[in-house]
């Protein structure tokens, strides 16, 4: 229908056909073609449903703005890894990073050593961890961009390698010395300055890690030439090459940045657990699967070249608030099981919707 939109962040909204188009069909079109609109509506629906359920005493604890704000702590690792996947998937040619969870485990152990055992200052330990994460990402990027491995295979291999190293490096023991345990204070909630007295307290991690990362990634994608190049190679590898874009270098950097973000998530995770656990990022179904789910839900096309920071953030909010409500609606670990169901259903629903949108309107943004 229309030419592929290389520049989803700043391109003008598509002109909606003849002016006679009815309001209903315009709303449907907006919902289907603009993922952000759909996610915003879904968030409103989810929150309303839980507020109503709360008002009628269906929940085991009150679902109010305080609860919603405190549950945001779960959004920090999820959204950051979602942004990491955004960068990698955008780079196209089957870009995906299965190893982010394993990098979180391994970088978390490095942080544990640096801050918990070698007594480095906090800032130095955090920088070292981020750099280390970047190195892990560089290995992925080297294999994918320069050697030509399919991303799925390269990151599957490094997933195994990093996961194994994280467990072996300290003989399967977690590091939970005094300084590490004190880090738990990072996860405390704070009152916002000036307007805070009227608003619920928000977890500190949102301000120290999530918002800076989101802003940096947004600036990178929407306001730098690197971002333009990344969208370009994700949309068409060959055309970008002939346009003089350093394709390999651009793709390589996407994996490095994803690694750096994973390193920062490692710090957050260590603080949350008050311990550097060797299996932090890979226990259960791991961190990579939810992160990829968030990215896809946020409207990132798995084929590359399409995706926005705002979509990832909204998708995270939707899942976090949905999960928080489900936890209150069921007793015991029933709740955590229904969270799996909700995540899977929402993902498939979003994916099928993408398919419909592609056929009816020629692509979503």
């Amino acid at each position, binding site marked *: 229908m229309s030419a592929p939109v290389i520049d989803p962040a700043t391109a003008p909204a598509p002109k909606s056909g003849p002016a006679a188009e009815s309001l209903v069909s315009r709303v449907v079109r907006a919902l289907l073609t603009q993922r952000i609109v759909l996610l915003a509506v879904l968030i409103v629906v989810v929150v309303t449903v839980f507020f109503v359920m709360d008002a009628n005493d269906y929940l085991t604890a009150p679902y109010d703005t305080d609860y919603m704000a405190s549950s945001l702590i779960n959004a920090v690792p999820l959204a950051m890894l979602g942004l990491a996947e955004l960068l990698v998937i955008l780079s196209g040619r*089957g870009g*995906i990073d*299965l190893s982010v969870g394993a990098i979180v485990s391994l970088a978390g152990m490095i942080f544990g050593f640096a801050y918990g055992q070698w007594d480095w200052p906090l800032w130095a330990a955090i920088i070292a961890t981020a750099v280390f994460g970047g190195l892990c990402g560089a290995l992925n990027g080297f*294999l994918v961009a320069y*050697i*030509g*491995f*399919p991303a*799925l*295979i*390269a990151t*599957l*291999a*490094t*997933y*195994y*390698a*990093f*996961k*194994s*190293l994280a*467990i*072996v490096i300290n*003989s*399967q023991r977690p590091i939970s010395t005094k300084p590490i345990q004190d880090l738990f204070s990072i996860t405390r909630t704070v009152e916002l300055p000036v307007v805070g007295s009227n608003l619920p307290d928000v977890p500190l991690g949102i301000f120290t890690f999530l918002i800076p990362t989101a802003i940096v990634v947004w600036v990178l994608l929407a306001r730098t030439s690197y971002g333009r190049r990344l969208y370009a190679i994700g949309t068409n590898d060959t055309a970008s090459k002939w346009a003089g874009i350093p394709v390999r270098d651009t793709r390589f950097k996407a994996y490095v940045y994803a690694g750096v973000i994973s390193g920062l998530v490692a710090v957050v995770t260590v603080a949350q657990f008050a311990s550097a656990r060797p299996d932090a990022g890979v226990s*259960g*179904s791991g961190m990579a*699967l939810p992160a*990829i*789910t968030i990215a*896809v839900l946020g409207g990132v096309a*798995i*084929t590359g070249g399409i995706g926005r920071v705002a979509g990832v953030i909204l998708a995270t909010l939707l899942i976090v608030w949905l999960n928080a409500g489900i936890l209150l609606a069921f007793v*015991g*670990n*029933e709740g955590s*099981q*229904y969270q*799996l*169901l909700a*995540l*899977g*259903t929402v*993902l*498939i629903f979003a*994916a*099928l919707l*993408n*398919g419909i949108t592609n056929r009816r309107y020629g692509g979503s943004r």
Partner: protein
Amino acid sequence: MSTTLGQRPGAGSPAPEPRKALGQSRIRVLPSAISGQEFVLLGVIAVLWVILAFATPAFFTAGSIQPLLVAMAPIALVGVGMTIIIITGGIDVSVGAAIMVCSVVTAKLLVDQGLVLPLAVLVSVLVGGALGLINGLLIAYGRVHAIIITFGTANIFLFLGLQIFGSSTVNNIPQTFDVFGRGVAGRTFGIPHAFLITVIIAAIAWWYLRHTAGGRHFYAIGGDAHAARLAGVRVQRRILLAYLITGLLVGLASCFVIAQGTSTLDQSVGTGKELAVIAAVVIGGTSIMGGRGSVLGTLLGALLVQTVTSGVTQLGWNSQLSDLFVGIFIIVAVGADLIRERARRAK
């Protein structure tokens, strides 16, 4: 085709070459029965076995080789199905969760109803088939990339499995499945049944993929789905079939998994199996882009992964190190394949 060429004699002339080939020898449609990747794998496995034999004298005894073959069976069996899926250009990351659902359903029925062996296997295979059918329907007719759908169904299958577990383990599983197990009951003439069944199924799949039109269609879809459709392949039905076959094999593999475990089944069953299966398939030389691969390679890949896992344990190293070697072998195996592919293209 010839008429088009006749109308435009000036436009490039690919004509003489095929005529020459036709005149001198039959055009080779099938790749050779055993590919370069498989020779490399055989060599690597042989080297590993020799090293292990020198390092731990106990390695080359029946008591060491038999458990190795039993342990590789479920991965190799699911790998056969995964090979077909990956040949079509898809992927299935939900097999780990599907193994969990099949094994918990079967184990519960074994405990509660005391099912006889054939019935228990049938139930497991049917449950697996149903899960595979769900994947197949969503992927073939929803026209969404397989990795996204199977990430979603993996979560839903996990939910199903955990609900059936009902927050406790399944205890006192009867020994119905011992014919697939590590014990004496699981062997005939020293060959473990689980391994034998896997080899037979792999052989059937090998023949089907190589020598029947239906099997070649999977390769056609992986090579170019659009071209395959124009050539008359029922693409969606073929894709559905690939996931259905994998589901059925997951059901059978779940019986092996129960047989290898203790009399207690816990919630961790199947965890991480999807990645182990994909690792075995890609080490076996099946291209993740689709259109190329073989079941024989997958068997060798599973054998290599299991050799590494057993070897690390037998050398007395930290068993967690085996994952590191699996990672390295994926890089080496796929890297070797990439280099050969590049050489092939350069020719």
